[in-house]
């Protein structure tokens, strides 16, 4: 069965189903019903995603699984969404993340649940759109649309300082994306036209835009700043710990599990191929920043006492490596980034689930106040240890393959950078084990004495994550094959 023959294509389903589901969720008043609806809808999305993966033909780069509506045709933009290997992978990640997040939320009660679930699903729609956009303007649209519901989620259901923290997040990313918009418009002026318009926003038009070296040099930064803020790369990262700390757990999972991938995705799809010359020229700066950020964030993570901030900084360190690996322009590095995007998404969601469970039960996030949870909640501890070890890229877990390949790519680029960046794997071990030890080992105390082990739904979610961790750690090849063509296509731009 050729997907083309189905009355509606996968990209459309993936983008519009969450949208519709989200809008419907707004209408449902009863909390239990809306939660069921959200879980159901996200599972259906997952089903669609799986189906699309089954039909994925990654040898046909963009050719298949692309759908385009006339939209703003007189300014050269069409609503073109499509799936290539990377898109497949990241939509799958998005589709997988949401049901897990919903289920892991358990019987969390939200004020105004319908709005909550509705906004979550809208975020999903935005994310899907970002990963599928084949048109610069559409990309920009979804880019913003993913942020707005997230902003509302964080500000509405977050912690005490949520308003300032998430507002910082919003203004920060908004500034970045506006800069990107200027860049998009400038490139647009140098694209070839379509039959209706002088220029075009289509991705291919952007790839073939005649932007000379001088322009590339500053345009590169306009785009990069936007993506760097999103990822976030040192020194654009300060919104992240605050936001993660203040946002509600499930939104944090979305933010860190999926949304930061937007930045990396965007660098691969919308930055490097459009400005290959600038990417080559500034590779040292970007990689330097990323590497500095890795070490910097790791060192800070060692000193964090708040689990959430701790995870945030560790995430910054990991993202730094991904960003650096992209700019090595090597097959192995780029492929590693692909793997790691998926792996990091799952791992960090797992970390958040655990952190959330701990916080819910004990009422504190202070690492120094916790301890001995392993006695009270052995299952939770086992899952945490596995996820934490995956997070520090232990072999046979998913992150190892990605990090291995990224370091391999980085090594090809520069041995010095690799050596410096490599110390982060040591530091990662230091801070992760510190955390594990202080929170889970040792003796119980007053705070943790009443700790209960996790419920069935959380067990299920964590088990799913762990299965993925090992599956991809032992047999990552399917994911590599899926994204191979994307990598090749991107690297071709440097030739």
């Amino acid at each position: 069965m050729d997907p083309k023959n189905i009355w509606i294509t996968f990209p459309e389903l993936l983008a519009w189903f969450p949208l519709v589901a989200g809008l419907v969720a707004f209408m449902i008043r009863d909390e239990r019903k809306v939660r069921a609806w959200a879980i159901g809808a996200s599972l259906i999305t997952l089903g669609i995603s799986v189906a699309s993966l089954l039909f994925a033909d990654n040898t046909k780069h963009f050719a298949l699984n692309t759908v385009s509506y006339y939209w703003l045709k007189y300014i050269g933009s069409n609503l073109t969404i499509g799936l290539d290997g990377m898109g497949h992978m990241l939509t799958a990640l998005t589709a997988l993340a949401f049901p897990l997040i919903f289920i892991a939320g358990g019987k969390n009660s939200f004020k105004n649940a319908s709005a909550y679930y509705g906004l979550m699903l809208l975020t999903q729609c935005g994310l899907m759109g970002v990963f599928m956009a084949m048109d610069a303007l559409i990309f920009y649209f979804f880019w913003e649309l993913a942020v707005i519901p997230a902003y509302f989620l964080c500000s509405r259901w977050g912690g005490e300082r949520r308003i300032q923290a998430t507002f910082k997040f919003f203004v920060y990313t908004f500034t970045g994306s506006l800069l990107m918009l200027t860049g998009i418009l400038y490139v647009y002026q140098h694209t070839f036209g379509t039959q209706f318009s002088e220029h075009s926003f289509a991705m291919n038009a952007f790839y073939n835009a005649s932007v000379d070296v001088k322009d590339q040099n500053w345009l590169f930064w306009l785009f990069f700043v936007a993506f760097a803020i999103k990822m976030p790369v040192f020194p654009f990262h300060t919104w992240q710990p605050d936001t993660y700390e203040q946002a509600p757990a499930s939104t944090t999972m979305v933010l860190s599990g999926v949304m930061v991938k937007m930045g990396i995705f965007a660098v691969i799809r919308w930055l490097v191929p459009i400005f290959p010359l600038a990417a080559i020229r500034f590779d040292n700066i970007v990689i330097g920043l990323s590497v500095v950020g890795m070490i910097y964030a790791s060192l800070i993570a060692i000193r964090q006492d708040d689990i959430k901030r701790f995870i945030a900084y560790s995430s910054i360190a990991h993202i730094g490596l991904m960003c650096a690996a992209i700019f090595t322009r090597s097959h192995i590095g780029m492929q590693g980034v692909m793997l790691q995007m998926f792996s990091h998404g799952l791992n960090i969601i797992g970390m958040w689930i655990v952190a959330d469970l701990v916080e819910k039960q004990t009422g504190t996030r202070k690492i120094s106040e916790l301890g001995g949870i392993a006695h009270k909640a052995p299952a939770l501890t086992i899952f945490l240890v596995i996820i934490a070890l995956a997070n520090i890229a232990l072999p046979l877990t998913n992150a190892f393959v990605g990090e291995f390949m990224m370091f391999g790519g980085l090594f090809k680029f520069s041995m010095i950078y690799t050596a410096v960046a490599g110390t982060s794997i040591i530091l990662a071990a230091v801070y992760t084990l510190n955390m594990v030890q202080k929170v889970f080992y040792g003796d119980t105390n007053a705070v943790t004495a009443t700790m209960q082990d996790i419920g069935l739904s959380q067990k299920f979610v964590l088990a799913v994550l762990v299965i993925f961790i090992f599956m991809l750690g032992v047999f990552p090849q399917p994911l590599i094959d899926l994204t191979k063509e994307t990598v090749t296509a991107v690297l071709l731009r440097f030739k």
Partner: protein
Amino acid sequence: MNAIILTAVWGVLMMLAGAFVKSKSTPKYLAIAGAVLALVVNCMEMNTGMPLLNIEDKNMLATNSMNLTFINIALGCTLLYFLLNGRDIEKVGEHVSEYFALIFFVLCGIGLIATFNTLLILFIGIEIVSIPLYILTGSDKRNLKSNEAALKYFLMGSFSTGIMLLGIAFLYGGSETGSFYIANIISGSAPMPPMIAIGLVLLLISMAFKVSAAPFHFWTPDVYDGSPTVFTSFMATVVKAAAFFAFVRLFENAFGSLQAQWQKLIVVLIVATLLIGNLTAVFQQSVKRMLAYSSIAQAGFMLFAVFALNGLAKEGLVLYAAAYSLASIGLFAILTRMNDYTIDGFNGLGQHQPVLALTATVFLLSLTGIPLTAGFMSKFYMLQAAIHTGKQMWLVIFAVLCAAISAYYYFRVIQAMYFKDSNADSVPVETSSVSTAFKVLLIVTAVLIIAIGLFPSLITDWLYF
């Protein structure tokens, strides 16, 4: 032409209605009917080129699709404004039908400044717009703020009229053959003679004053703040957009060929306007005053149309006029219902009045320029127009950074509505003042904004067909 005549006539009709109709709500319906009628006849003229009266205008008025489109937008927004704010106009004072009459006269003036071909019509049009506004500003006679605003507006407005007239005089003197036709002022693209330059600068300044571009914006916050909110709504939206339209028309048709020589002035204007508008708005506590500053900030963006003066700029301007007017009218309509105009007054609106809060959010998002709203599309066109010129990229970057600042103050309102709780003893809005029709209209407005954001061609196509 049709719209000018009809609005003038309808103004007189409203005036007479004031004398003969005793019911307080009748003028509102009459006015709505007038707006609808004006819209109809304007569309008629657009589609068929059929004027109501065949008047020899000696080429003083230009009725092309662009201008008519703009008039359409102005009329449409006014209609919406009447629908949303009709009841609030009634509450301002006793002379309800006179207020409506004045608004119709303003519309007549807008018709003139949207179609002028000579400086004389421009001058008269601007005066016809201004004088009723002075009156409307001061219509809340007992309110000292209203008094103050009216006086300030009047004095500064007259002053700027003087500037403008001096400019016109110099242009007349400097033109080759002594003509007021904007097409004849400049011939060729040679360096400007000093007299023309003086006239141009003076005219630029007076137009900048009308569109409240910094540093000629000082009247704006005070006047917008002091006027009765319903009239602020009208002033800040339809009138302002019209002034912009006149600005662009004037500079495109009269001085377009010399753009390179005066563009730097526009750059100065844009920078100053964006900076002052956005920065000052940040600290405002009153939403009304914040919107006044935000209107200055938005003017900074609209000035890009004058900066670029290309096809995109015109489309952008029309879009901007629509987007900005719709969103601001909606916001002001909500604001008139509020018990407290400060930002804290919006606390908890999301719980008390979800519809109001939701639509206000859409309006604010549109003003911020979030995608899928008309506000985004209009900013998009403006930036694109500016980038299309290929000059002064830094200005565009500066503008988007300012837009980021604008998110700061617009979102403060959103935060207040959704993320903060209202005081226990007071409600943000009296439920009785929010009718279902009002809500429906707000939703319609919001939908319109999103529709334009999705399909800007709904409006831009008018320019070509």
